[in-house]
């Protein structure tokens, strides 16, 4: 580390002024980064604070290690029922973004193609006047948030604007939306206490799911009881290592496979007749469709999935007392994504959703609230930005959809045609660099938010609290929205003055019904458990303010002994929703002698392209393959030999959109005829670009209903 004399003088001056103004803390922020370690010679007082991670949908409880009131390290909160003290690489390195030199320090306005710093007042003025002029269909909102409270607020804001053009990218809601559309609600969780067989359709349960760390633990416990889970997925990822069996299936065939399983269950007659009669509206139509078109043999000839495996798994599924056919957002990454999901839901219905659970008297906001009850054809998604001339104001919250979409060029063009684009991203990324105005949100460690989750079978509220005061002039987007709703009078009565107020109001029901406990002790056992179950509460708070203070201090609230109901929805699935329309056969890349199929896979180090600017994760990304800061592809040695590609040689992959170079790595577990390409590299908005973004090279194939991009239906040539 080098400090020149000028820096040192500045440092001296800075700290003197800092002391004068009150507190070293503020002064620390004005001095060059290289000097900060020197200041660690301070008293070195260690303190800990709890908060919640917002790097993925997992909502893990965190303990932040602070030295002299500055966060330095992150560990898991052992009392959080979601992660039990465990951590993942993303969470462990999450403190870095707080100090990142690329963070936006104040609102930015684009003038002549360049961003200029402006004051918050000015930025707010611009946004408010744009909102005053544009309402209804002229406004659109694309957000990515795992907080149901924040999603709710955005929903309220947009309904106040009378616009339906809102898309909330939210792993949880994306997963349950399919349930919502063909049944009266989705299940809240897999009931691991009852469930004894799982058929997994493409979900990377332990890597990228609604709660990777909870599922890692739950699946281990599940297996230790002697239960098995079968997995259908296009790639053997760590999440499927423990599956028995793993059946390689390309995502567009999940539908066929699920219905072939249904075929076996139906023809064996081992389905839940009572449930089907009562709750499955169009069962006869469904039965007819399945028996006519989805016999295992027919499916094998269409998809190449061995019928023996299908029958074996189907019988296990049918014989299990409480089986689960599981899927999540990843099932949508195919041209027929939603139909895939419907097929799996229908499969579950045959066994009466035996392995799923539902909570009684849920007081938490439903993460799948947005788009509920909307006909899928009318639901808005970000792809509809393309060609929509009405939109004059686009707001983007933390979503980097330009990076994640294969149609990024069209999206860019569409965004360029929108008069005002406002981004709330804390960094310049591929999407926010297109904005006209950026009002950066706080970092995760400066924010206040709450996350609700039901994956564990218990209602959990994880609190995110500001561990440090905001470093820069960033603004909590929730505050912006709350103020805007109030000032523009978007709803009739709006008593909330800021997001904290709004959040407190949303959490009051929990305080009121008085059940559950704070995350201040382990799950009660023995006598204490019986007392809990009998309704005794040992609340350590007597007022809502105390409850709120403790909620933040302990990191959250949960109900360890909720009342669990069996999930018995009414299925309104009609056979024509599953039947393939003519001309919409799955996009099936040809396996010809000189072409391969590109399958883009995700790793647990990158969630929706957020690895950008995380030095640790970027370094570690290719560690397993010993490829660093560069692109690689994985392919089966047999395939490779057909194309005379040597292990670890450089190859060029050509798609319809161009070509990129990568290192070819042999992996005998890759599906023959596929090349597996990792997603996460290739950010163009950061200073240095490593690798390429394969999504930008893939064909523009989307799920017809949700607009999720397909990640595995691109034909490539290699040379």
């Amino acid at each position, binding site marked *: 580390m080098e400090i020149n004399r000028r820096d040192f003088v500045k440092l001296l001056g800075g700290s003197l002024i800092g002391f004068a103004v009150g507190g070293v803390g503020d002064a620390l922020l004005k001095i060059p980064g290289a000097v900060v370690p020197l200041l660690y010679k301070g008293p070195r007082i260690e303190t800990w604070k709890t908060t919640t991670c917002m790097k993925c949908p997992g909502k893990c409880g965190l303990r932040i290690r602070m030295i002299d009131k500055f966060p330095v390290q992150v560990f898991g909160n052992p009392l959080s029922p979601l992660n039990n003290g465990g*951590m993942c690489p993303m969470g462990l390195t999450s403190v*870095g973004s707080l100090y990142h030199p690329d963070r936006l320090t104040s609102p930015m306005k684009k003038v002549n193609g360049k961003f200029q710093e402006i004051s918050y007042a000015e930025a707010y003025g611009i946004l408010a006047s744009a909102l005053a002029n544009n309402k209804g269909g002229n406004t659109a909102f694309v957000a990515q948030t795992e907080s149901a409270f924040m999603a709710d607020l955005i929903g309220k804001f947009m309904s106040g604007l009378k616009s339906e053009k809102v898309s909330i990218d939210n792993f949880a809601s994306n997963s349950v939306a399919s349930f919502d559309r063909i049944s009266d609600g989705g299940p809240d969780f897999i009931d691991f206490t009852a469930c004894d067989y799982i058929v997994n359709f493409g979900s990377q349960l*332990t890597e990228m799911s609604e709660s990777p760390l909870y599922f*890692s633990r739950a699946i281990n416990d599940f297996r230790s009881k002697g239960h098995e889970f079968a997995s259908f997925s296009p790639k053997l990822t760590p999440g499927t290592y423990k599956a028995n069996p*793993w059946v390689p299936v390309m995502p567009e065939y999940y539908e066929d496979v699920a219905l072939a399983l249904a075929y076996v269950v139906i023809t064996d007659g081992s389905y839940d007749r009572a449930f089907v009669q009562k709750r499955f509206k169009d069962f006869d139509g469904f039965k007819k469709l399945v028996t006519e078109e989805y016999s295992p043999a027919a499916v094998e000839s269409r998809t190449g999935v061995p019928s023996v495996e299908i029958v074996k798994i189907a019988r296990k599924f049918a014989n299990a007392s409480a089986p689960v056919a599981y899927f999540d957002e990843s099932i949508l990454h195919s041209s027929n994504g939603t139909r895939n999901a419907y097929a799996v839901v229908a499969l579950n219905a045959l066994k009466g959703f035996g392995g799923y659970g539902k909570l009684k008297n849920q007081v938490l906001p439903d993460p799948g609230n947005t788009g509920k009850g909307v006909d899928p054809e009318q639901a808005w998604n970000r792809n509809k930005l393309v060609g929509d001339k009405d939109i004059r104001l686009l707001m983007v919250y933390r979503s980097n959809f330009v990076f994640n979409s294969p149609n990024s060029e069209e999206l860019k063009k569409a965004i360029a045609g929108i008069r005002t684009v406002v981004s709330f991203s804390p960094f310049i990324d591929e999407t926010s660099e297109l904005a006209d105005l950026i009002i950066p949100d706080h970092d995760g460690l400066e924010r206040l938010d709450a996350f609700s989750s039901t994956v564990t079978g218990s209602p959990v509220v994880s609190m995110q609290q500001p561990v440090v005061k905001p470093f820069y002039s960033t603004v909590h987007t929730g505050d912006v929205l709350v103020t805007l709703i109030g000032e523009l009078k978007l709803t009739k009565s709006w008593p909330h003055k800021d997001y904290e107020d709004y959040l407190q109001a949303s959490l009051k029901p929990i305080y009121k019904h008085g059940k559950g406990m704070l995350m201040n002790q382990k799950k009660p056992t023995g006598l204490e458990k019986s007392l809990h179950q009998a309704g005794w509460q040992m609340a350590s708070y007597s007022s809502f303010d105390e409850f709120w203070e403790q909620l933040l201090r302990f990191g959250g609230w949960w109900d360890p002994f909720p009342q669990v109901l069996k999930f018995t929805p009414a299925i309104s699935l009609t056979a024509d929703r599953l039947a393939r329309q003519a001309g919409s056969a799955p996009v099936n890349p040809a396996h010809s002698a000189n072409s391969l199929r590109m399958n883009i896979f995700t790793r647990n180090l990158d969630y929706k392209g957020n690895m950008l600017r995380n*030095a640790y994760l970027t370094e*570690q990304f290719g560690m397993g393959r010993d490829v660093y800061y560069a692109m690689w592809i994985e392919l089966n040695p047999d395939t490779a030999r057909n194309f005379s590609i040597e292990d670890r040689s450089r190859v060029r992959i050509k798609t319809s959109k161009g070509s990129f170079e990568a290192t070819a790595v042999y992996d005998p577990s890759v599906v023959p005829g596929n090349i597996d390409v990792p997603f996460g590299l290739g950010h163009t908005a950061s200073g240095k670009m490593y690798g390429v973004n394969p999504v930008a090279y893939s064909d523009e194939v989307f799920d017809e209903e949700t607009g999720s991009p397909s990640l595995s239906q691109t034909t490539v040539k290699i040379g």
Partner: protein
Amino acid sequence: MPKYGMVIDLDKCTSCQACVTACKVENNVQIVSEDDAQNGRAMFWMKMLTMEFDGDYPNIRPKTLPRNCMQCDEPSCIKVCPVRATYLRDDGIVAQIYPQCIGCRYCMANCPYTVKVFNWDRQEQPAEVERTYNPDVSVRPKGIVEKCTFCIHRLQTASEKAKAEHRDLEPGDYVPACVEVCPVDAISFGDLDDRKSEVLKASRDYRAFGLLEELGTVPKVRYLNAKE
């Protein structure tokens, strides 16, 4: 005197790499430059290794295991060190004395597990990484060898704390960072001399094995094979 050991249950391990990251963050292990990483100089004290692929496609599974320093009881690195920059402590930890190391790399050449890493050069770390250094661990200069020390600084902190509280060090007071963060508790850590310890029980499991045990290095990090 305790004898610290570790057992990693490969049946539980989900290959999530949290231990790898936790180790880097906890021990201020340098992030090397792009060129250096591509030339095989990336520094990991804990690394995910793919040992082999079992079975034939599609019933194929890679055998992956997290590999840190084996903390051998008969360490080959210590034997050859010309300056006692690495030594076996009474509590079984193979520790490093960074200010003593002359950088001859003999220990690296002699470690059958290739766990030692060398500071080929000192790169400027990204600002956010430098700011989040763990203040308990020194940042190593260029030209010396380093490796996993079972987070020995945590042992110091824990024993000082225990001393201040006038009690003995209890099991669980001291665990390395990888053990603490493992989301599935696949890593058990503790005193191998304590007959009641979980780690001793695990290390005597029928599934237990040590990497390259046949070399007689007596590794104190052992693995439990995945169940069939």
